[in-house]
C-alpha cells in the first residue's frame, strides 16, 4: 500500500499535495472562522452530488419538466428529500457566500496579497445567483415559470446586447422547450463548472496565503493578531482545524435537513420545497416572487419608475459591486477599513429593510394572499389529477387541468356568467361582485334543495332566484307566490314528490344515492307532473312532444345534455324562446365553444374526478 502511494506520488505529486493540504501549518492555531472556505466547498459538493441524482430524474421540455419533477417529488420514494436537500442547500450556499464576503471585509482580509482571493469571492456571488435563477425555472411550475420571467425580462432592458442575450437564453421569443434545455445546460454544466473552478482557486489561494490575515502587506507579522490570547502557537490543519471544519459541515447538513423535514415532522404546512401547478403561460401567477434571499432586489426595483429600471436593475448593482471590488485599495487609507465595513453594514441593513418591506407588503396584500391560495388549490388539484388512475397523458399535466371542470368551471363562470349569476353568493372564483345579482344563484342547480327554494313562495322572487330578472313578473313567479302559497298539506306533499322527481331528471352525481333510494317516489312524482296534478305541464313540456310551450321543456331538466343545449341557446323554443331575458346565446353566437360550455356545465353539476378515499 505504502509502496503504491509512493509510486503514485513520484508520478503525480498527489501525496505531496495531500500532505500540503492536511499538514499545512495554520498560524495562530485552529479557529472556527477558518471553517468558512471548507464549508463553502462542502456545500458546493453537496449541490454537485444531489444535482447529479436530480438530473438523472429530470426531463427538460414543456410537457415533461413539471411532470418529471412531480413524479420525483411524489412517486419516487425519497425523491422529495433529494429535491429538498438540493433546493435548501442552494439557499444556504448563497447565504454562506454573502456572509463570508462580509466577514472578509470586516476582517480586512482583502488587503494585499489577498486581493485576488477577495475578487474570486465577489465573482462567485453572481455565479451563485445565476445558478439560483436558472434553477427556479427547471421545475416548470407556476412559481418558477413566472419568477424566472422577471430576470429574463430585466436582461432585455440592457442597452444594445440586452434583447440578444435574452433571446439566446430563452432560445427564441417565448419560454418553451429551448428555454428549459438551455437552462439545464447552464445550470448543470457551465455555471457549476465556473463556480467549482473559482471556488477551488479561492481555496487554493487562501491556503497559499495562510488562512488568517496574519501577514501584513510588507510581509511582516501583524502584532495586533499575535497579541490575541488564543494565538500563541501554530498548529497543523489536521486534526484541529479539520475537526472544526467537519463540525461546521455537519451543522450545514443538519440545518438543511431540519428545514426540509420540519413540515413532515410537524405534520402540517407546505412541503419544502413546494411544487405549484404546471406552468401555464395563459394564467399569470401574480404572486410569483424570487427566492427569499433575492426579495430585496425585487423590492428595490419597485422604487424605480418606468424608464429608469436600468438604474435599479443594472447600474446601481454594478456600482455596488465596483465599490466592493475596489475595497483592497480603499482599505489602504486610514479611514478606508472603516468605510468598507460601514459600506457593507449599510448594504446589509438595506437588504434587511427591503426584504422586510417586501415580506410585510405581501403579507398585508389581499390580492397576493388570494393568488397564493388559488395557486395552492390548483397545485393540490394538479396533484390529484396527476395521481389519478388515468395518469398524465403525453400532452402533459397542464392538459389535465385544462380539461378539469373543477379548475376551469369557476374561471369560466367568473368570466362569462358572474356578471348576472352568482355561485354560492360569489362569482365562482371566490370574489363577491359589487353589483347585486341580476339572475339566479346556480350553486346546486337542479338539485332538490335548489328546486325547493325555487318553488317556495317566499324565495322565488328573491335575488337568489328570479328576483333580478324579467321573470319576476312572469307566470312562474305568479304561480308560486299565489297558487303554491295556498296549497293544502296534501298538495304540499305532492309538490315534494314532484321536486324529487324533477330533480332526478338532472341525474346529479351528488344525488345518485338519494335517487336510487327514492326510485318509487320519483316514479309517483313523474306521474303527478304528467297528469297535471301540480299543474307543471300547463306551461312546460315533460317527456312528450307539443307545440309552443310557455316555459322551458322539463324533459331531462338540468341534465348535462339539457344544460349544454340551454347555455348554447337559451332563446331556443325548447327553453325560453322569445321570453329569454338577457342571457347571451353562448353557443349559438359563438361566445364559448362547446368544450368550455361543457366545463362550466360539468362544474355546475358537480361532475369532476374525485380521488377515491380508501
Amino acid at each position, binding site marked *: 500500500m505504502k509502496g503504491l502511494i509512493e509510486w503514485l506520488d513520484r508520478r503525480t505529486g498527489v501525496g505531496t499535495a495531500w500532505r500540503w493540504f492536511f499538514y499545512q501549518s495554520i498560524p495562530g492555531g485552529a479557529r472556527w472562522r477558518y471553517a468558512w472556505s471548507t464549508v463553502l466547498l*462542502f456545500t458546493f*459538493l*453537496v449541490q454537485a*452530488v*444531489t444535482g*447529479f*441524482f436530480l438530473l*438523472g*430524474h429530470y426531463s427538460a421540455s414543456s410537457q*415533461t419538466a413539471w*411532470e*418529471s419533477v*412531480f*413524479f*420525483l417529488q411524489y*412517486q*419516487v*420514494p*425519497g*425523491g422529495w*428529500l*433529494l429535491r429538498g*436537500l438540493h433546493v435548501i*442547500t442552494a439557499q444556504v450556499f448563497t447565504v454562506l457566500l454573502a456572509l463570508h464576503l462580509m466577514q472578509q471585509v470586516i476582517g480586512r482580509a482583502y488587503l494585499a496579497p489577498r486581493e485576488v482571493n477577495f475578487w474570486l469571492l465577489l465573482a462567485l456571488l453572481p455565479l451563485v445567483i445565476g445558478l439560483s435563477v436558472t434553477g427556479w425555472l427547471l421545475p416548470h411550475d407556476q412559481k418558477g415559470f413566472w419568477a424566472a420571467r422577471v430576470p429574463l425580462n430585466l436582461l432585455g432592458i440592457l442597452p444594445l446586447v440586452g434583447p440578444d442575450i435574452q433571446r439566446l437564453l430563452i432560445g427564441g421569443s417565448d419560454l418553451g422547450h429551448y428555454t428549459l434545455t438551455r437552462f439545464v445546460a447552464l445550470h448543470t454544466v457551465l455555471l457549476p463548472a465556473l463556480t467549482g473552478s473559482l471556488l477551488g482557486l479561492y481555496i487554493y489561494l487562501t491556503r497559499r496565503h495562510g488562512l488568517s490575515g496574519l501577514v501584513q502587506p510588507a510581509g511582516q507579522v501583524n502584532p495586533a493578531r499575535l497579541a490575541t490570547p488564543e494565538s500563541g502557537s501554530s498548529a497543523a490543519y*489536521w*486534526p*484541529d482545524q*479539520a*475537526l472544526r*471544519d*467537519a*463540525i461546521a*459541515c*455537519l451543522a*450545514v*447538513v443538519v440545518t438543511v*435537513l431540519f428545514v426540509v423535514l420540519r413540515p413532515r415532522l410537524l405534520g402540517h404546512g407546505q412541503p419544502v420545497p413546494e411544487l405549484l401547478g404546471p406552468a401555464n403561460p395563459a394564467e399569470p401567477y401574480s404572486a410569483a416572487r424570487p427566492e427569499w434571499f433575492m426579495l430585496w432586489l425585487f423590492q428595490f426595483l419597485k422604487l424605480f419608475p418606468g424608464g429608469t429600471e436600468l438604474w435599479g436593475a443594472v447600474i446601481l448593482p454594478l456600482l455596488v459591486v465596483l465599490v466592493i471590488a475596489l475595497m483592497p485599495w480603499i482599505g489602504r487609507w486610514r479611514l478606508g477599513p472603516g468605510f468598507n465595513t460601514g459600506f457593507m453594514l449599510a448594504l446589509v441593513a438595506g437588504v434587511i429593510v427591503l426584504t422586510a418591506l417586501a415580506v410585510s407588503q405581501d403579507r398585508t396584500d389581499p390580492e397576493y394572499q388570494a393568488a397564493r391560495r388559488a395557486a395552492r388549490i390548483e397545485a393540490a388539484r394538479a396533484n390529484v389529477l*396527476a395521481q389519478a388512475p*388515468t*395518469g*398524465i*397523458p*403525453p400532452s402533459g399535466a397542464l392538459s389535465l387541468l385544462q380539461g378539469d371542470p373543477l379548475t376551469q368551471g369557476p374561471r369560466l363562470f367568473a368570466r362569462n356568467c358572474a356578471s348576472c349569476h352568482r355561485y354560492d353568493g360569489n362569482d365562482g372564483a371566490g370574489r363577491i361582485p359589487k353589483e347585486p345579482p341580476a339572475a339566479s344563484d346556480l350553486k346546486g342547480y337542479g338539485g332538490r334543495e335548489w328546486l325547493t327554494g325555487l318553488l317556495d313562495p317566499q324565495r322565488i322572487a328573491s335575488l337568489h332566484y328570479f328576483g333580478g330578472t324579467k321573470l319576476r313578473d312572469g307566470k312562474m313567479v305568479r304561480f308560486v307566490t299565489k297558487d303554491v302559497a295556498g296549497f293544502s298539506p296534501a298538495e304540499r306533499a305532492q309538490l315534494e314528490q314532484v321536486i324529487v322527481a324533477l330533480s332526478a331528471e338532472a341525474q346529479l352525481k351528488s344525488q345518485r344515492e338519494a335517487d336510487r333510494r327514492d326510485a318509487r317516489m320519483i316514479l309517483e312524482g313523474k306521474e303527478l307532473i304528467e297528469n297535471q296534478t301540480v299543474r307543471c305541464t300547463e306551461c312546460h313540456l315533460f317527456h312528450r312532444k307539443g307545440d309552443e310551450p310557455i316555459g322551458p321543456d322539463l324533459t331531462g331538466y338540468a341534465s348535462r345534455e339539457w344544460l349544454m343545449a340551454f347555455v348554447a341557446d337559451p332563446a331556443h323554443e325548447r327553453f325560453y324562446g322569445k321570453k329569454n331575458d338577457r342571457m347571451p346565446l353562448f353557443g349559438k353566437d359563438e361566445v364559448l365553444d362547446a368544450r368550455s360550455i361543457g366545463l362550466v356545465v360539468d362544474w355546475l353539476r358537480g361532475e369532476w374526478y374525485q380521488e377515491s378515499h380508501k
Partner: protein
Amino acid sequence: MLGCSVRVDRREGLELGLLMPANKSIDRERRNFLEGIAALILGAVATVTPLAAGLRVFLQPLRRRAGANGVGFVKVTFLNALPADGAPRRFLVVADRTDAWNKFTSVPVGAVYLRRTGETRVQAFNAICPHAGCYVDYSAERNAFGCPCHNSTFALDGRVADPRSPSPRGLDELVVEIRAGTEVWVQFQDFRTGTAARVPV
C-alpha cells in the same frame, strides 16, 4: 477546554517536578488521535447524508419487482390473419403502457411471431432473440427464425436450430388464448436476455 487541561497538567507537573513535558506530549497525541477520529466520523456523516439521499433515488429501479413490465393479455389479431400452413407471421403488440410519469394508451410495446398449430391453436413467440435482444427475422426459404445480430437460428417451434447459435435458450414462448372464437390474445412479456433460464423483466 484545552486551556483547562493544560492548567491541570502544569499543576501536576509542578507537584511531581519532572513529568510535565512527557505527559503533555502523550496527552497531545491522544487528543490529536481522538480529534482526528471525530473529524473523520463527523465529516463522513455530513458527506454520506446527501449521497445516501441521492443513491436511494438512483437505486430505485433495483427495487422494482420482476415481471412488472408485463402488460397482461393483449389482443393481437384474428385467426383469419394466420396462414393455415403454419408459417409464422410477425405482429405488433399494442397496449397501454406506463412510462415513469406518463400513461400512454395504445402504443407499440413489442412484437410477436404467431403461427397456427391447429384449426384453433396458435403458438406465440416474443420476437426478441434471447441472446442479446435483437429482433429475429423469419426466413421462408430456410423455414426458420434467424437473428440478424449474431446469427442465432431457431426452428419453427422456437428451439435453437443450429448448435453454433450463441443464444442460450430457444425463443420465448408466450401464452395464447383464443377468445370469442376468432380473436388471438397473447400474454405479452419480455424476458431477461443472455441467460439459459427464462426470467421475466
